[in-house]
């Protein structure tokens, strides 16, 4: 599909110098003035600036837990502002992009122009034609799909104000607070009552124009009787020299509604990915998460579902692949508050080449969640004896009519299986890749076809150890 060039983005939004007043007070360089400047450049309403400043205070106060979670000492917490500044976050030109990233683009067949865009050295692209048609369709139905910044300057500002930052609290964890202080870019989606979109919205087409996605905030609000499928990310690695991603996704689902949120996250292998995603669901609705986590050096990722209404259900299907130098702590959280609510979690994890995979989950069933049902199934595959796979699920049940089932298995590919496939002509590597792809099938079959194919390709590359 042909792409058109988007006007060069204004990267100066993060362009600061050290002579800011009060700089010395903040050892990490992230001062209230920086935050004010961000807000001013975006021409934000007062309430948004207040929220940013409050978040900055919270960020200074909070500490990361010491008794669990991957090591993030590689993040330069003393110079957090540099993560926010554009100078270090983008490579200056194509030559600066690491070789293994370039290789991956090659293997995945990404067109050259897009490669530059993904690596942050070229102009941003979006698929103007497809996107243009989508926009007309959506406008007819009253669906809004824009940036939060644009929404704040439109008639939808009250909606943003009503929902932004209300689901994920500023003090959820230290990097949520950082996010709220410096967030930039991201999508705002609004689906009015009764509208059922027949095609998914894909954030890939909106590599957004302001800021480069490290601290993007996605806000999705759907009213009653709606149907929306939102796809975030893509299999191609996103590279940043300033290697912190602290994004947030807030989703509000109405009553009698259906929402599916699919992601393939493949941050480059130097990244620290501390992402926070949360949904709250009304009555008689269905929420589905489909999640593939492949990249980043360290991940903290636990999409959270609050089943506030009655008789709603949530399904979470996810896969995490941890290879060399990766310590991925992922899973999900479910809170069943309404009566008759159900949750079904199925996750797979694969550990290889010394990768560390931690499945971390919590299922909390509140006192009033009569007849709630939750099942969690977590399978881990160890591909060698130098990797690690830990399963740490927690359950907190406070209603006697609730039923919770949980099962987890950890093991390796059986020699018999490999032998069988080899006896049918596969090489050992092909056999192992086939088994792993089969293992990942419950996730890939939930994705739209081209994403599923991409995911399978990604797995193939990971198995070859070809990805940087």
């Amino acid at each position: 599909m042909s792409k058109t060039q988007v006007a060069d983005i204004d990267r100066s939004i993060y362009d600061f110098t050290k002579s800011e007043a009060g700089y010395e007070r903040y050892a990490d360089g992230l001062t209230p003035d920086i935050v004010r400047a961000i807000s001013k450049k975006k021409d934000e309403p007062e309430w948004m600036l207040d929220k940013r400043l409050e978040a900055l205070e919270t960020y200074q106060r909070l500490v990361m837990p010491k008794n669990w979670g991957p090591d993030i000492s590689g993040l330069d917490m003393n110079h957090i502002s540099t993560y926010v500044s554009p100078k270090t976050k983008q490579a200056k030109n194509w030559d600066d992009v690491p070789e293994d990233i370039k290789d991956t683009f090659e293997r995945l067949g990404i067109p050259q122009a897009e490669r530059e865009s993904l690596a942050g050295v070229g102009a941003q692209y979006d698929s103007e034609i497809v996107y243009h048609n989508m926009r007309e369709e959506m406008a007819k139905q009253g669906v809004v799909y824009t940036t939060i910044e644009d929404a704040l300057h439109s008639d939808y500002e009250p909606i943003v104000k009503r929902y932004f930052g209300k689901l994920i609290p500023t003090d959820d964890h230290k990097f949520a607070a950082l996010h709220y202080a410096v967030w930039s870019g991201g999508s705002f989606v609004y689906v009015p009552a009764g509208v059922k979109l027949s095609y998914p919205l894909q954030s890939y087409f909106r590599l957004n124009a302001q800021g480069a996605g490290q601290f993007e905030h996605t806000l999705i609000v759907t009213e009653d009787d709606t149907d929306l499928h939102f796809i975030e990310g893509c299999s191609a690695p996103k590279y940043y020299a300033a290697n912190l991603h602290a994004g947030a996704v807030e989703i509000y689902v109405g009553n009698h509604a259906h929402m599916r949120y699919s992601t393939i996250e493949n941050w480059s292998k130097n990244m620290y990915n501390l992402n926070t995603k949360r949904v709250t669901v009304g009555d008689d609705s269905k929420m589905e998460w489909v999640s593939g986590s492949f990249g980043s050096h360290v991940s903290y990722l636990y999409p959270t579902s609050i089943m506030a209404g009655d008789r709603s259900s949530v399904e979470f299907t996810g896969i995490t692949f941890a290879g060399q130098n990766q310590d991925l702590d992922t899973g999900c959280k479910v809170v069943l508050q309404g009566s008759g609510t159900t949750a079904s979690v199925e996750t797979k994890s694969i550990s290889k080449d010394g990768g560390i995979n931690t499945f971390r989950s919590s299922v909390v069933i509140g006192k009033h969640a009569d007849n709630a049902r939750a099942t969690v199934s977590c399978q881990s595959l160890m591909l060698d004896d130098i990797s690690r796979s830990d399963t740490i699920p927690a359950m907190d049940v406070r209603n006697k009519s609730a039923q919770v089932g949980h099962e987890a298995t950890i093991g390796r590919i059986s020699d018999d299986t490999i032998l069988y496939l080899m006896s049918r002509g596969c090489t050992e590597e092909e056999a192992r890749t086939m088994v792993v792809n089969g293992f990942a099938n419950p996730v890939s079959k939930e994705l739209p076809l081209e994403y599923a194919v991409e995911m399978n390709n990604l797995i193939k590359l990971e198995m070859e150890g070809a990805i940087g």
Partner: protein
Amino acid sequence: MSEHKIKKGTIATKTASRSTIAHINVPPSQTWNYLRVNDISFDVPTPDAKGKVFAAVPRLFDAIETGGGTPLAHWIAEASGDGNYVEVPRFTSKGNPIVIEVGPGAASNTAIMVREGATANIVVVATAHEQEIPEASTPSDTSAALTRIFVEKNAHVKLTEVVATDESTQHLENVGIHVEDGATVDVRQYALGGSKVAYGIAVDLAGERSRFNLVMRYHVSGTSTLDVNHLCRQQGPHTRAEIYASGVLADSAHKALRETIDLVHGGKDSKGNEAETVLVTGDDVVNKTLPVILCDEEDVQGNHGATIGSISQEQLDYLATRGLSEQAAESLFVRAIFDDAIINAPESLSRNAAVARASLVLGSDVSHDLVEGLGIELTDERSAHAAQEREA
């Protein structure tokens, strides 16, 4: 018929001061702190013997990891005065149990060395007050038992723990076991009462082909709290671990259960299974579970399963065809916990304690029913009298 009885100490008589032991029952891998499932703390009397050095227990036992953790182990050692050391000689299998008994206000610290090829039967019993509660007791009495066992190669250990205290007492039950090549350890734990009970056990399957089986049964009611930490480190190759916990939570009971199977690098061809079944009958129950599998080795299998809620429909239907309504089935499940304790109690002290506790929970008709029905002898005179009266 003689049993090897262990001496215990009185925790504190000289001072009324209290202290807090934090971080009891901490699992090797923790989770989000806001869930408040990572540990528990206890408010306990400050021991008279604080700071003394104890000679009876050989140093090597200090290296044995316990389920309750080091701060707790230290406190129990201080609280029990001098410790006990028992050695079961090589290749012996006398069958007379080693019995460790603590009542309210008492603590014991026992180190047991089970030599190569020996068989040892160990019982830990936490009893309640006798019917006439002594004047000197305080409202929140504490009892505690620290038991560390070193199992040499090819030895076999059977450990039965019966905590049968009542609502006036809190109990701290802490066990650590080190297991060498080819040795096996079978543990049965019963949590039948107590206002606040911590049950911790850590087993290190250091030797190859060593095996660990654990069955825990619990009944928590009223406003009582049960906090459990089960940990098995499968270090040696070809080890096997099976951990199974099941119980009933009634009224406003609080329970936290942590199970960790740690498949350590080097423990090739090891298999660990953990499972939990919980029946919740109370309206204000808080039930927390943290079943963890840690895996650092390829050629292993780890499995975990938990079922929380009510009796399975399949079981309910079968029991209904025999005349049991759902409520009657629940009562049967509660009774079964106590019957199971009585059946598996290896000697009279533990058996009596289970029957006494069952009498308080189920009524004395039901509590003595099994004993009479199976012709088990109770050495407690009061029960024997009561039995005779019922026969009339």
